[in-house]
């Protein structure tokens, strides 16, 4: 049974066959025998459907009609009257309609108050009277153990720092590759090896600006301080320049 258990239709088919078997008075059946019956009935049905399909096609239709089924059965040497007999036989057992499966929602991350309100009510034990205020959000009083490695020796810090930086680089590049136009690096001659891409260049009318102005040092505090200093210098110098200009005029 384990092979079939993944497909709900297979399960249904098996169950209905079991019902039919039961109808004829078997309370117990050996596994192998049952499987044999299952296979046989499966084959018969497939055969039947194939025939129906052939009939349908011969008459150039796309949907089968009852006559097709009847003809097919006839071809398969099934006597229609006997079928009638079976049909008339009263049905004792009926198949239970299958369980309704609920769709599982992925857990929402970063839950905020609205959902936690409900859950917090659930958390309130019965012995706490209603008039008392509700519990706060569980994260404020439930502590969970974390297993992050908090030892901070030098190599480990460097290691994580480097990993972070590299991950940042990679994800930035990946993001840009997805959002921007890209060109393939490999001359693939038709075959598509497309793991190797470059972000397409954007040409600028003033390319020297982005090249010369420092951009990789933004986070450094010392440079900021230095820049402030130079900016002050510059304003001072430009003042002196304008002064000389006036003087010359």
């Amino acid at each position, binding site marked *: 049974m384990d092979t079939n258990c993944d497909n709900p239709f297979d399960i249904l088919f098996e169950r209905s066959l079991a019902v039919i078997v039961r109808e004829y008075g078997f309370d117990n059946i050996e596994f192998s025998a049952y499987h044999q019956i299952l296979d046989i009935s499966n084959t018969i049905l497939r055969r039947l459907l194939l025939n129906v399909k052939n009939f349908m096609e011969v008459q150039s239709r796309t949907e089968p009609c009852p006559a097709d089924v009847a003809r097919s059965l006839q071809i398969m040497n099934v006597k229609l009257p006997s079928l009638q007999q079976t049909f008339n036989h009263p049905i004792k057992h009926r198949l239970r309609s299958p369980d309704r499966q609920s769709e599982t929602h992925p857990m929402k991350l970063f839950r905020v108050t609205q959902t936690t309100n409900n859950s917090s009510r659930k958390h309130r034990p019965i012995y706490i009277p209603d008039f008392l205020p509700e519990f706060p959000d569980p994260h404020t009083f439930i502590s969970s153990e974390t297993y992050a*490695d908090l*030892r901070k*020796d*030098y*190599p*480990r810090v*460097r*290691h994580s*720092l*480097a990993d972070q930086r590299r991950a940042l*680089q*990679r994800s*930035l*590049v990946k993001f*840009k*590759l997805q959002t921007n136009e890209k*060109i*393939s*690096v*490999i*001359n*693939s*001659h038709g*075959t598509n*090896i497309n793991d*190797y*891409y*470059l*972000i*397409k*260049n954007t*040409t*600028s*009318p*003033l*390319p*020297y*600006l*982005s*090249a*010369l*102005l*420092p*951009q*990789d*040092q933004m986070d*450094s505090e010392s*440079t900021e301080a*230095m820049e402030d200093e*130079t900016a002050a*210098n*510059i304003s001072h*110098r*430009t003042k*002196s*320049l304008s002064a*000389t*200009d006036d003087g*010359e*005029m």
Partner: protein
Amino acid sequence: MELEELRQVTRSFVLSHQTLCITGVSFDKRCLVGYTELTIHPLVKNFNVIKLNARQLTIYAVTINGERNVEFSYDDPNIQILSDDDPRRDLQSFLKRQQRFSEYVDPDEGNGELTIFIPLHLQKQVQNSSTTDNVNNSNTSEIVYKVTIDFSLEKPESGIHFFIPDDDTKLSRLSRHLFTTGHDARLWFPCVDSYCEPATWTIEVTVEESLTVVASGELIECTTNNELKTYRFYLSTPAPAPFIGLAIGSFESVVDSNTQEIANYCLHGLLTLLTNTTSFVHEPLEYYEELLNASCQYPNYKQVFVTEPYAECVPFASMAIFNVNLLYPSTVIEATWHARSQMAFALANQFFGCFITMRSWRDWWLLKGLALYLASLYTKRAFGNNEYRYNLNRDMLDVIRYEREENPIRLDFAPIKSESDITNVNNRRGTMMSSQYLEAAAKKAHLVVRMIDDFIGREIMMQILNKLMCLATTACLKDASLSSRSRLHISSKSFSRVVSTLTTKDIQALLTQWVYESGCPRLIGSFTFSRKRNVVELELKQDTTIKGSKKFLGSLVIRVQELEGSFSQTILLEDSVTKYELTCHSKVRRNKKKKIPLISGDEVDMDLNQMDPECPILWIRIDPDLKVIRELQFEQADYNWQCELRYERDILSQFEALEALKRYPSQNTRETLGTVLDSSHCFYRVRIECAHVLTHIANSMANTWTGTLATLSFFRRVFMSTNSTLTSTNVTTSSTNNVSLTAPSANIVRINDFSNPQMYMIQKTIPQAIAFQRNKDRVCPPEVINFLFELIHYNENSKNRFSDAFYRSSLIDALGNTLTNVGLTSTTTNVDLLLNHTLDNNTKRIFDEILLQLNFDKIIPSYGFCVTCSCLKVLHKLYIISGIPIDINVFYEYATYGMFDRVRLTACEILVEQIETRMNQDVFEYIFNLIANDHDYNLRRKIVQHLCRHPPFRQNQTCSLNNPITIHRLWSLMKNFSYDNHIRNDLVELYQIMFGLSRPNCLPPANEMTDSILKDELDDVSDTIVDIDPERLSYFRLARYADDTKAAANKLASTIK
């Protein structure tokens, strides 16, 4: 005496003052409109024709002394040097014609493109007035003609460059500018385009109010009128027309904080960089003034940083134009050296070069050499003696290499007498040299000037320069006569005359050896020690058989380091093989522990166990101070070299020893190199070179090599964290069992701290040297590759004051250095198979890393996109060496206009090398298109120069590209660049490299008969052009120009508004 030399110049007049007035500038139309007024003093009696230089200009009218619409003719033969229907395609005829045409318009020959005929009645009038005024004085110098020429310049190809970004944002509009590109003044205004015709100048430029004008001279007036601003400059110091510079744009500016005379200008948005870059400029100025004991004769000095200039640094009178790429923020370390030496060079030109100029192209070397000499003296002071000596040595090696491999350098650019002497494209007039030749010649010129300095002594040299400056200064005085202006230009002859009058020494022999003739000697030396007589027998041979060699006769210094000290002797080279006996001052001693005195005065202990007990000589050096331009090959035992490297303090000696030690791979050499690498008192360049040699030694000893490379362990020790803490933590955490997941490698490189520049340079360069290591399978050991990857992985710059851009790019270069093609057996074309199976893991890893860095550099650019440049180079190596089929479009992508120019240049260089190795027709076509059409003229030149260095084929080589199509393509390029002389010269050189001087072999031999007929015919034509009757020629030409000029000028002016 000086006037006499001036007479050699056959110009029939003297120019005393010129006014250049630009009345309108239109960026949208890329044009200039203006007029110029020349004050001319005739030198001859019947002065009836004025010849001036003017190219690519439209001349509207000429007025002389108020007489309007004077007859003139305009004929520029250089435009039609080549014709498409000339089937010959050989350089000989081309060069012949070019030479002839350039003489035809040479102002020093009294010629010019623009011929103005002085009307007869005007001649009489002037003569009469002068004779009535000075009846007694027969001197004609009182006669003055004022010649006014209205002209316009539209869409110039050269001379003036308009930089106009193609979009219309505010920033782009602010960044529009124009500037003079070089010293071809005739390309943008009518003038006497000669270096020996100094005049005072008034420059008046009217522009929109938002624009700033920077020009040669002092700003004396600035008036605003109807949203137009007029700048008026006056240059009281006479300067020749080629040194008149102009730059217009909405520049931002900074006045030097130390001297008000220096002002710096840059494009919008770069002010912080400008302040940082130019903060030092007052230093060289003060230094030169102190050195020469003379002040700069220009009232001020301006530096303008522009984009797409034709050269990195172009000096003009009282100003200089630089490439914007020289600007750098304070966080970048290595840009400093180059930028400062360029600016120091431009400033040196304000003394020798622009102020004191060359008399003719034959004296080019003297002025170039003097300017470089001054600049290098400054760099010696600013960057130290070691750096200075290192640069000298490098220049000398460059010069020698050029002479050996390329062309002989003859510094005296004398015109060739007979045309059959044209054996080489660089063997011609000064204006027709290729850039590479000029570059090598400049280096040689500097070395020669330095030899003169050595010969006569520094103090006397400074006195001579001071004397020249003083003489020139007197010519700048207000009441100085016109003839005294000849003191403003010097020639080889006048210089040697000044030297011989001030000293008793004669430098003529020196000039003959190094200036008038080409070549440099190659010395091969060896020595033996004779114990009996206690002398060193030194043998010096001169190899005169190789290319570019020349026998040297003269004195040479030999320095012998013995046990008792260092002794110098001067010997005289007299023959090609000479033997000398140098008396030895030391006795052989045994096992005496005594310190050994060195030349520097230090006394050191040496380990003398290795030494030959019979010989007291430690090492011998020949010409230790680079007094002669020479190639040296000296034989001494490896022990001597090791000693020299370890104990000698002179870096040149250490470099020589390092070079020699490459030949002696042994355990001892290894140890010596390791010691020097480690010693912190060694010059950093020596240590870097040491690392390279160590790798070299390791590679040649690969089979017996054990242990890690000393360089690697040195790097680990100095730049990486010690692993003592790590091992302890490893022990403690091993129980938690997640060590294996996060276990960092044994050592981690420290976070970057580049505050010590020497250590920074070592840290930056050593990985490159390590990467060259190969194990016995001739591949880079995995240990090294992992090491490099760790360096990249753990690079952490957040706490550093300085940018790590160049460090990162250097690491990428190092990755490229590890690539080998060993073991790459499969030549599969299946890309999938190649990438996923055949390629070894490390190569694939490198490939991934390069792509990541290349992409990341696009998101956060490094300074000057240096990381991108390195990545592109490695990508190309991956293509060539490892066989990864890189799409050529990637390089096209980086070569398109709109990228940063260094990136473009790198991509183009790769494409050129691609042509060299793969002979790809499409790429060749692409490169030719760039050369023909690109907006960036500097890039065009650089591409051609790179093509000359890496031609797809040389003369007579078989190659699929060696076909008539290529010939026609190159020929038409040469034809089209009629205004840009430099690129044309470079193209001509390329043509010579690929096809030789005579008709290319792949063309069918021209029919002998028609060929000879054609030749004669063409010779006739060019002959007649030279002595064609100008008046006859002018009549039909005049019809084109003699229109109502006012209307035309007005029309242009109105369209500008």
